[in-house]
């Protein structure tokens, strides 16, 4: 884009130094001295509430105990054997509503053990030095197709390798990692960590990768069912939900996830065009990430508008406060009713909302408008029609997502699913990893039974 210092939407609003500072590691790693003091705060609880709160069930007191005794590799193994993306989760997990919320230190002194940073302390060296902790199981001769190269798919493929099965990962994008690579705010995962983690996962062997392979475009599920012994669906949510307003395709109305992906892939973040007035519609992590990041790129005014209150936001209080201290204004109880346009978007008209006596969200009839040169849609995503359309047979869905059993098996024979595309999943990396792991274990059992019966 041509450099025009007066344009409303322009790049390089901040100096390179300011951008570097704004996108530096959000939570720098703990040095050993601090890690030991923090590790000492762990009470080594019985049947630890933090472990129960962890979607992947990491033995948290166990790995902290090993930090205490300087057994860092052992500590990392305790983490990664339950959650092969324990490195990324240490960076992106909303620990304040998971393990750290459950920490008994909250009751004692209102300050939990900093489990996230301890987890990072334990796992960083493994990825830096590529310490091999996992071995491929004895080859079973079975092959599994994994659709999706994000946390669910990679977790599934890795666990399948441990269990002796080979897999082929069909990945939509140019790089593996899914939202770890293309989503997630840049300051949460600096120095290309997502790719280092991917390389570590693949280093176990037995995982073949086919990038830019899109379900419904390059192949169908039926193809895979013929060729492979089992299939895992971990393709996430391909479509962005619309606002259902007129002129939604006008210039300046963007999908937050697309911009976030662009930002993550940019060689120079300063190149990204940023508006003067940015309005973000939504209340989840995507809304927070786009708002805080555009503010940190130099946007003058960034407003998040959410139709309900702070307690109902998908983003945790901590994340909300992070956005606010980044300079973002969060407005609650308003819904967009109209896009204001000139030749491009010029603003959004909102109607204030409230709960009626039945607790149902309703408009109050009171309106206000915000100027906007860019509007970001961040009200959620859904399964892509292309992906779904290519699936023959009756794949049971609920609220537009795939229904699975406890072993993550779908209604279709030989097909498992996990991650964001599955009904009941909370859209967290850590939950996707757990889905992939559980599905792999279930697939392994299925394949072994098959062999015994066949």
């Amino acid at each position: 884009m041509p450099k025009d210092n007066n344009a409303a939407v322009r790049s390089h609003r901040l100096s390179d130094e300011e951008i570097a500072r704004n996108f530096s590691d959000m939570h720098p790693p703990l040095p050993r001295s601090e890690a030991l003091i923090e590790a000492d705060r762990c009470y080594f609880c019985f049947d630890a509430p933090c472990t129960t709160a962890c979607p992947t069930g990491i033995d948290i007191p166990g790995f902290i105990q090993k930090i205490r005794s300087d057994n860092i590799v052992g500590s990392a193994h305790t983490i990664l054997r339950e959650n092969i993306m324990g490195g990324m989760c240490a960076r992106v997990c909303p620990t304040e509503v998971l393990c750290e919320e459950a920490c008994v230190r909250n009751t004692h002194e209102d300050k939990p053990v900093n489990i996230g940073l301890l987890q990072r302390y334990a796992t960083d060296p493994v990825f830096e030095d590529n310490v091999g902790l996992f071995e491929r199981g004895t080859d079973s001769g079975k092959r599994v197709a994994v659709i999706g190269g994000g946390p669910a798919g990679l977790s599934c493929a890795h666990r399948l390798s441990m269990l002796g099965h080979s897999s082929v990962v069909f990945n939509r994008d140019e790089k593996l990692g899914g939202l770890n690579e293309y989503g997630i705010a840049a300051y949460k995962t600096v120095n290309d960590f997502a790719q280092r983690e991917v390389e570590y996962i693949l280093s176990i062997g037995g995982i073949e990768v086919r990038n830019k392979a899109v379900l419904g475009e390059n192949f169908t599920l039926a193809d895979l069912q013929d060729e492979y012994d089992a299939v895992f669906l971990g393709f996430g949510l391909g479509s962005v939900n619309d606002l259902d307003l007129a002129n939604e395709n006008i210039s300046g109305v963007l999908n937050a996830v697309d911009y976030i992906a662009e930002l993550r892939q940019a060689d120079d973040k300063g190149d990204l065009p940023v508006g003067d007035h940015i309005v973000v519609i939504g209340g989840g992590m995507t809304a927070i990430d786009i708002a805080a990041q555009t503010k940190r790129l130099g946007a003058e005014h960034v407003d998040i508008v959410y139709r309900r209150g702070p307690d109902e936001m998908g983003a945790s209080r901590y994340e909300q406060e992070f956005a606010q201290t980044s300079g973002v204004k969060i407005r609650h109880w308003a819904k967009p009713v109209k896009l204001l346009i000139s030749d491009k978007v010029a603003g959004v008209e909102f109607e204030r909302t409230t709960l009626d006596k039945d607790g149902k969200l309703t408009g109050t009839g009171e309106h206000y408008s915000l100027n906007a040169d860019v509007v970001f849609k961040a009200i959620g995503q859904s399964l892509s029609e292309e992906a779904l359309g290519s699936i023959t047979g009756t794949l049971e869905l609920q609220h537009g997502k795939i229904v699975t059993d406890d072993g993550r098996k779908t209604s279709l024979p030989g097909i498992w699913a996990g991650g964001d595309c599955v009904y009941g999943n909370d859209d967290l990396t850590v939950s996707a990893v757990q889905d992939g792991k559980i599905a792999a274990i279930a697939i392994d059992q299925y394949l072994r039974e098959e062999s015994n019966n066949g």
Partner: protein
Amino acid sequence: MADLKSEFLGIESPNPFWLASAPPTDKAYNVNRAFEAGWGGAVWKTLGEDPPIVNVNGPRYSALHSNERRVIGFNNIELITDRPLSANLDEIRQIKRDWPDRAVVASVMLPMEEKVWAKYVPMIEDTGADGFELNFGCPHGMSERGMGAAVGQVPEYIQMATEWCKKHASVPVIVKLTPNVTNILPPATAARDGGADGVSLINTINSIMRVDYDTLTMYPTTDGMGSHGGYCGQAVKPIALHMVAEISRNKNTADIPISGIGGIHDWRDAVDFFALGASNVQVCTAAMVYGFKIIDDLTDGLSKFLDEKGMSSVNDLVGKAVPSVTEWQYLNLNYVEKAVIDQDLCIKCGRCHIVCEDTSHQAITSIVNGERRFEVIDEECIGCNLCVSVCPVDSCITMHQVSDGIDARTGKPINTEFLDWTAHPNNPMRKQS
């Protein structure tokens, strides 16, 4: 305000906190700083014959740390003073002149020949030192030369050397005892029999701190080799308290004045020593870990404690806990306590449950009515105090006496009569009434 003025064997000091004979009292510079900070007295770093000994030129100290690197235990291989005797004597004389209200005691270690004692004791006393402390405790280096603990471990030698010192000294003589013995009473008795005016204890305990995990040699070393050192600091306090209490409660030694040493770190540690019979205390490791400023807490905390107890001086406190120390066979076996967990304070860490479950008597729940909840099961609780010991929350678990009714564990009525082992029916040697 309680008066902290102290008199030990007639030696006066403004408070009962002396610096023990050790690196902090090596020379006038340090002792001056200590007295400026407010220490009541100093036992000078042990004097010996000229020429002075030679120390290693590498690590003398090492520590046992908590993860936060707090020093829990401390080890040293330093020997007695490595400075010429005349330098020490000149400085003692000057310090005593500059600080007439403070106690300055000369620690000495001399070979087992009377003529040596006859030569040096008067020379040292001439400095104006308020007394002698005989170092029969140093467990490393000096003991290999037939001094220090080599003397302290043989009661006959203690008595002999004490007699020599007393013969040539007119000021009080304290004998410093080594804990590297199985029974502290014979050395204490020997000191008294030799004419000692009092004893001080404990000196350091033989120790090796650890190995180096890279080289698999002991740690630390001097040029690849190490030798055992003397262990001290907070970790040794319980050992010191036991030995002090043994002397205090034994009728043959109860009259020996005691200067308590071993792991005193704050004023509460000092209270332990006083209550178990020490008349004053000596401190080294805490000063070596934090500097002389800790004297503020020691004196202030002790003074406020005495006020709270309605005591006007340390003397009111000395020996208060001694009558409560006895032998196991005299403990009341009919007395029953059980743990009670304060549910309002409980943070639900479950430590009490798992230690009781794994290593004790399965007397604490983990789930009650489907909820995570830790309650004592009176039917199983033997009152062992393990849960109290491991609970991270102060006062969350407390022990309560069951004084009447039925003991839920035994199903038998509480017997309020005193019954110890000596009279217990299970004791084949019991005394018949």
